[in-house]
């Protein structure tokens, strides 16, 4: 491994942080933050590897659409969280287990 390869490790790091957040936080909003981190990690990789694409930068296009989807996802997810909060008076993920049984 070359020392200058560290640039390739930024996005894995962010990804793992995101996973960690999703798994360990009881609060749904925090889990959502984790998902955002995961998405951004993927984006970063896309952009990094499309560095010298000529013509249409396909990696960047992908990242752009990911951003769009992420925006949509956040809006819907928050709407759902608000609804859940209205209904259950909590946003803790492990308290919401109505589907169990």
């Amino acid at each position: 491994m070359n020392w200058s390869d560290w640039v390739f490790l930024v996005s894995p790091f962010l990804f793992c942080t995101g996973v960690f957040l999703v798994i360990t936080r009881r609060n749904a909003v925090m889990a959502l933050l984790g998902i955002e981190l995961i998405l951004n990690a993927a984006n970063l990789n896309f952009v990094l590897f499309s560095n010298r694409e000529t013509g249409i930068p396909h990696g960047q296009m992908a990242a752009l659409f990911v951003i769009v989807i992420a925006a949509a996802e956040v809006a819907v997810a928050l709407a759902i969280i608000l609804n859940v909060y209205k209904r259950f008076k909590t946003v803790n993920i492990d308290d919401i287990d109505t589907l169990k049984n």
Partner: protein
Amino acid sequence: MLDLIEIAHIVFAGITLLGGLALAFTKNIIYASFLLFAVLFGIAGLYVFYGAEFLAMSQIIVYVGGILVILLFGVMLTHKLRDLKPKTEIVNLIPGLILSTGLFSIFVVFVGEIDFSQSLAKDKLDLGKAVEHVGNNAERIGVGNLTEYLLLFELASVLLLVVLIGAAYLTRKPKGEEATS
């Protein structure tokens, strides 16, 4: 050897990494939101170094300007500041730690295994010169949007519209409830 641009690169990467690390261990949701801001800002900076100025701007406008604000709204609406502390408990700490460090070490091994000089990125990844790179970034993305990605572009706009309506619908007050709440 370390020229100024490379130092700036390292600084932005550092902001991202440290932000992420702090984000992983903070319990306060408000702090977490702002730390996410730092991370996203750092990523936007990194985009510039990888020759994606347009994306960097989008990142800041969409994420920092939009998504983060929505997130903060969410936090405030679900944690009425008086009766609920904006803190979150941490569950599954040990397994989570094992999992994420395990995943990360596997990524490290993978990155170590791959010889990037053979593949597309490494020999081309001349960070210092990334900025003066093949033509106007925004223009290329614009051309892409209206040619090869036109359908996706349109679909994305429809998706956003649907989400707009959907989110409004989801959070609306049901008709009967107005009197009670």
